[in-house]
């Protein structure tokens, strides 16, 4: 019986020292990291214009790098003349409330039948006007205001070239602050590197 069993030696290393070193490097890395967000904005109604602009202006205020890619109806949000509307038709979640009158009336949710919404001329114009009035009264920013705040805070606004061609629009209809006219292949690599990526 020889003494053949090999003694496995632990590598010479102070584990605690290494762990401390590692934690420090990780903390440094985290502190130096600038968070980033990419948003794909695909809707062009007044209600759906808010999420991309609220989230991107707020993220920019927190010091994040933000890019928003506007495609399909989302492109409407970059028009020079913003004339955004809502449609309560087929949207049962949308509250229909009066922005004027006594408190009990303002709280009441009007149940307007679809057939009325669909057939009364100018119904969407009226609903949009009421929504805009409610937003103004409650101190909610206008889309124009949020959009200029985004531009001021260096939110990168990029637009989909294909959509412009598809709907026979012209680049001159849009605000000059658009940083680039691109396609999916140009946007995805940015989205890949971002911490937060949203489709709205």
């Amino acid at each position: 019986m020889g003494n053949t069993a090999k003694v496995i030696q632990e590598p010479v290393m102070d584990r605690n020292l290494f762990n401390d070193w590692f934690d420090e490097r990780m903390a440094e890395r985290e502190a130096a990291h600038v968070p980033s967000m990419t948003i794909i904005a695909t809707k062009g109604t007044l209600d759906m214009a808010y999420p991309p602009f609220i989230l991107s202006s707020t993220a920019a205020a927190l010091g994040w790098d933000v890019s928003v890619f506007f495609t399909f109806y989302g492109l409407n949000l970059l028009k020079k003349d913003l004339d955004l509307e809502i449609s309560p038709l087929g949207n049962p979640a949308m509250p229909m409330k009066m922005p004027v009158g006594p408190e009990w009336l303002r709280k009441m949710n009007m149940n307007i039948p679809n057939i009325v919404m669909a057939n009364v001329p100018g119904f969407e114009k009226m609903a949009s006007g009421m929504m805009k009035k409610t937003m103004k009264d409650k101190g909610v920013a206008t889309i124009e205001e949020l959009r200029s705040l985004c531009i001021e805070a260096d939110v990168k606004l990029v637009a989909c070239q294909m959509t412009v061609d598809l709907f026979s629009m012209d680049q001159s209809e849009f605000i000059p602050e658009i940083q680039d006219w691109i396609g999916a292949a140009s946007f995805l690599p940015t989205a890949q590197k971002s911490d937060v990526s949203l489709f709205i």
Partner: protein
Amino acid sequence: MNVEATTTLDTRGLNCPLPILRTRKALNGLQSGDTLHLISSDPGSVKDIDSFCKQTGNELLENFTESGEYKFVIRKI
């Protein structure tokens, strides 16, 4: 040497996210170590300003409610 300058920002009547955006803007115009007094009527701003300060590293020195209004004292880093 920084001279301590105190600025007041009134965001009463404004709703999310405007108080945060105005705070950011006001802080941009201040020197490191300056303090900003912020008044808001938006109940959501209590949590949002706290989160904003944590994320941006600015120091939330005070945070209280006074006659239905929310008041904050922030020191710029």
